[in-house]
Each structure stands twice: as C-alpha cells, then as structure tokens.
C-alpha cells in the first residue's frame, strides 16, 4: 500500500463512524470519497461525510493576518507556525468492512481503533466496493450534520469516476435509490438532480 494514499490517523471512533486528523493541513480527502482503516484483521470502509479545519486549541480562534501581505501564500510564509497551530480533520461514516477477501456492506463488529492509519482507497478498491449498492441504504438512513442527499450524490459522483461507463453506473445507482426512496420522491429528485452529468 503506497504511503501517498495515507491521509491521516483516527482520533475518534464509534461503531458507525470515525474521525481522522490529516497529517498535512488541508490534505483532506474529498467529500463522499471512500477511505479505509484497519482494525487488526478487519478493514473498515468509510465514506467521508464532513471535514473541518480548526484551531488546535478549541478556545483560541485564528486571527486575520493578511492585511499587509501581498498574497494568501505569503501569510503562511511569514508565519510558518500557523501550519502547526491549525489542523484539518474529517469524519467518515462506516459503510462496510472487509474480512480476509470478503467484502461486507454492513457495519463491522468492532469500531476502528484510535491512531489507526486512514488511507484513501485505490480506484480498483472503489470499483470493487461499488459493485453493490447496499451502502446506499446505510447512507440514506443516517442523520448527519450535512444533508444526506448531498453526501449520497457526492459519493456516487466520486465512485462513478472509476467506472468505465459512469453513465451506466449512475443510472443503476439511481434505480436503486428510486426503489429505496420509493415513497420520498422529493429526496430522490434532489439526489438525481445532483448526480446527473
């Protein structure tokens, strides 16, 4: 597994989600992308649903510094400590796990462990994971700070990029959603509106 794909480390974990801090400021995986972490023999898959960059100390808010600087980069150059005083972290919703060679599209028996490394999934893995749309059911049934429709749409858009025929993938996913959201046409419409090319 290449180091390039390693994006951070778990700093908070529960059965349904985990929060990871990025090693580099702003090196966040995109919304809806598939990430994974390892817990002994089990690999946990998560979909990034939220990301934030905040001050290291909860009470101290950053202050504006760019009044006399020419560009935004110059702020960081003249105050290199900033990179250490701020941090980027993201939350991922656990949508499946892999035990040995078997992929399961439901919650793992154990949550992730703190300080487990978090990796972005390779296109091949994303493809394998998205063979089944069972994870959509997990996604649309959770309560999240971001809108679920946004998240579903973002993750499908992400996944479609690794398929040879993105259109076919999206249509198939759309049909699955149409069945899952059979009584909630407005939600379906919101998602479909966000994934059409």
């Amino acid at each position, binding site marked *: 597994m290449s180091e390039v794909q390693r994006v951070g480390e778990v700093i908070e974990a529960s059965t349904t989600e985990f929060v990871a801090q990025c090693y580099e400021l702003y090196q966040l995986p995109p919304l809806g992308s598939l990430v994974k972490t390892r817990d002994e023999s089990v690999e946990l898959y998560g979909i990034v649903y939220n990301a934030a960059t905040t001050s290291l100390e909860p009470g101290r808010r950053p202050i504006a510094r760019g009044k006399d600087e020419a560009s935004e980069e110059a702020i960081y150059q003249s105050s290199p400590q900033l990179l250490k005083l701020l941090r980027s972290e993201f939350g991922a919703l656990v949508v499946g796990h892999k035990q040995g060679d078997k992929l399961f599209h439901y919650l793992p028996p154990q949550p992730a462990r703190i300080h487990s490394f978090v990796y972005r999934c390779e296109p091949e893995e994303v493809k394998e994971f998205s063979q089944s749309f069972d994870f959509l059911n997990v996604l649309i049934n959770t309560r999240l700070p971001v809108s679920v429709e946004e998240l579903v749409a973002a993750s499908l858009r992400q996944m479609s990029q690794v398929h040879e025929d993105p259109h076919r993938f999206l249509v198939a996913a759309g*049909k699955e959603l149409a069945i899952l959201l059979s009584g*909630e046409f407005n939600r379906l419409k919101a998602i479909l509106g966000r994934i059409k090319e």
Partner: protein
Amino acid sequence: MSQRLGIVVSGSLTKGVEVRLDSSASVEDMAVGRYVTIEGERQRFFGMITDVSLGVIDQKLSLIPPDVSDPFISEVLAGTSTYGALHVLPMLTISGDVTSLIEGPQPVKTVPSHFSAVNLASQQDVELVFGKEDERKFYIGTPLDMETKICLNLEELVKRSNGIFGKSGTGKTFLTRLLLIGMLQKGTAVNLVFDMHSEYGWEGRSEEGRKVKALKQLFPSKVAVFTLDEESSRRRRVSTDFVVRIGYDEIEPEDIGLLRQTLNLTEASVQAVYQLAREFGDKRWIEATLSLGDGDETKQLLTRLSIHDSTYRNLRRGLETIRRLPFLLPCSPDNPVKRILEYLDEGMNVVLEFGRYTDITAYILVANLLTRRIHAQYRERMEKAIGEDIAPPRPLVITIEEAHKFLNPEVASQTIFGTIAREMRKYNVTLLVIDQRPSGIDDEVMSQIGTKITCLLDNERDIDSVLAGVSGRSELKSVLARLESRQQALIFGHAVPMPVVVRTREYGSAESYRGFIAGGETEIRKQAEKDIEELWE
C-alpha cells in the same frame, strides 16, 4: 430466443395475472392479443396479453411529474418509480410432463406463483399450442407479429355449427372463402353454399377492385355452381352446372311463415296460409290462391274458412311478391333438391348463386326451402345408417349469409336453420353462419355455435352476443374491439385450444392459390392411390 418481459406480481384465475414489466421492456412494444409464456415453478403457462397499463410507485409522481426531458432522470425512473404493467390471461398449461405430451396443452386450473418470469411466446410455443398444418389442420393465418402458422382443426370444426362475424368490409367473405377452401382441401365435409352475392363460386372482387378467384376456379373437379339467375351467370362467364327452378308446388306453408317479416304479412295471414293449404292441398295451394278471382265464389270461400277480407288482401300482396320472382315456376321441370343431393353424395361441393335476386325474400325462401328438404333427407339417411350399420352420409356444412334473418329470436324456433344449429350435429349437418349483426341472432342458437371467428365488431351489443358465455370475456372484449379493420380476426371455441387473434392468410395472389391447390392435390393423389388399392384388392 424468447424475450423476457417481466414478472408476475399478482392475479387470480378468473381475472388473469398482473405482470410488472422489466425496465428493459417498453410498454410501447407490447400489444394486446400477443402471446406470452409464464415460467411457473412446475408448469409453463401459455397466455395472452389482454391489457397494458402504466403504474407509478408514488402517487406524488403523477401529481407532480418529474422532468422527463432530462434523459438521465427518465432512464432512472423507468422501470422503478414508474413502470409498465401487463394484464395476462393464462389459458393453457404446456408443461413438458408425460400427460401434457400425450394430451397436448391443457386448460389452466391455477395461476403461476408469485414473481414467475414472463416471456414472449416463441414460435415453438405457439406451434405446440396450435399444431402444425397436416391432413386435418388447415393453416388459416399467423398470430400478430409472428410467422408461425395457426391451424384450425377442420375435422373438429365441422362437427359443430360455426360462425363468422364482423362488420361489413372487415373481411368476412375472404375468411369464408378461406374456410371453404380449407374444407375442400382437407375433404372433411361437403359444402352447400347459399351464395347471396355470387362471390364464392366463380370469381369475386377484393375491396381494391382486384379480381380474386373463388372455389370453382381453384377446385374445378370438386365444386359445382348452381344458379338461380342463368343470365347473370352467363354475363359473368361462369360455367354453371345447373339452373335451379322452383315450382309453386314445392313451397309449403312453413316457408311463408318465415317470410312473414320480409313480406310484411300479419299473423292472421300466416294462419290463413295453413287454412288455404288444407283447402287446396299442400302442392297446389299457391297456384289456387293466386288464381282466385274477385267473384262471389271467393267471398264464399273466405267466409267458409273465416278469413277476413283484409287478411286475404295482405296475404295476396305477399304472394304476388313471391310470384314475381322469376325462378319460380308453376311447375318445375327438375327437382333441385335431388340434384343438389346427387352432387353432394359424390363429394362435390355446391355453390348456389343468386345472381340478381339478392333481395332477402328470395334468399330466405330458397335457402329455407332447399335446406328443409336436404335436412329431411340427411335425417332419414342417418337414421338408416344407424339402423343398418352402414356408413353415415358425408358431413354437410351449409353456409348462409345474413344469418340474423333466419336465426333471429322470432323465427329461429321455426326455421330449419334454428333446428340445424341446435341439433343437427347428430345428423352430420352443420351450419356456417355469416353475419354482421350477431346480436340479431337468437341466444340459444349463438350458444350452440362451436367455433366463432369474428372480425372487428364495434357495436357493444354485437360484441356481447358474440362473447356470451366465453371465459375471460371482458378481456377478450378489449382484444376484439381493437382488431384492425382488415385481415384480422379473433378465433375462439371448439376448433382452437384457446382464443387466438390471427392475421388471416393471404388470399388473392397467384402464390396463395398455389398454396391452396397444393394442399388439395395431395388429397386428390391420396384418394387416387386409395382407389387403386381398392381396385386391386
């Protein structure tokens, strides 16, 4: 390769099953009247599409329609939130087990289980159900959108009376010609055709004005053309075999009874006929009545028979109409019934052309008169055959047009045709009824008709009367009302295992004639071989 359409989602035996279409199958490709097979767990069902409908999973969709101009959205919604549905009437089971192999397709007694796959019926399936063309089966047409031949079992067909119905101009005549040719070709029965418009014997015309050949031209050795109107036949260059002349002495009081409506006679006049017949004798009552003068003698006679003067006048007017028919003579030189029977006995088919006398009075009078005597003869022979254990007479099929005039509820009980429709099956005589107003035919007669072939009908009452007593009739109704106005017919009843919509076989091209004659020739050859064998035995 059969094409998968969808799955069974609900249904019942009486009402048929609902099939939800797969998203890959478009409702617009479906058609009422098409055949499908349903793969049940243990049995295969054969059925017909009787309705096509649209469904939505969420009612909101029909209230606030989605933006279907976007191809992505419409593609996603098709088959999921919105779907097509079929109503299928399972009719037969065609499972491959031993009993069904021996006995052929069986009528359904149950429905397929939930979510059974539904496919379009393949050619083999249709062939399995309707059989292949052979010595007894006659190829009448193809199902819609298929090339398979649909065959009628003519041997079964002629065992019952049959009907061909349809609005005028929908192809009844062509269908009748086809059926008659089928019977000639297979030799299952001899035909007596009362050809009102002279279109079965020699050539007729298609609606485009093209000449089409008829029976005598195709099977010259098997068909005899009789005519009532020699002149018309000669003008049309028809080679006739016999000119029918009918003597007054052959008209019986019953014949007048049937003409009551067409001659505008009162009930009293019909009664008077019987009285006059008793007075003058069955043979010469018409002549005698017509020669009655206005003198006192007549008055005395009428008083004696207690016939009112107005009744007499009414009757007289009616009889004058009959007298004006040129083929009626005071005394006929030949006996047409005898001649017809001679031909029929030889296995010749007789077409009686009416020429110019297409008015209904002549038709009813002649058809009735001849049929009654032929019927009596057949009855006698059949009884003799039973008693003496000899071969029964050949099955006879009598074709009549404008059947509602003979078989309407008022006269059906009196006419010979009513009797034939009801009971003559036993005496090897059946009817081929051609009519455009089936609602005018007596219910009792309709219910006895074995196989019904109907072209497009659009009058509610006609449709009801044709479909009376058929299972799945509301479904068939929708099929019947949507037939094309030409070359399409719904066949159901005794000679087919299930109701079937056919595009009728082509008739009128040189190739079609070859097809008819080829089938006939093998028959002739076979007959010849048989004769040779018998000769050397």
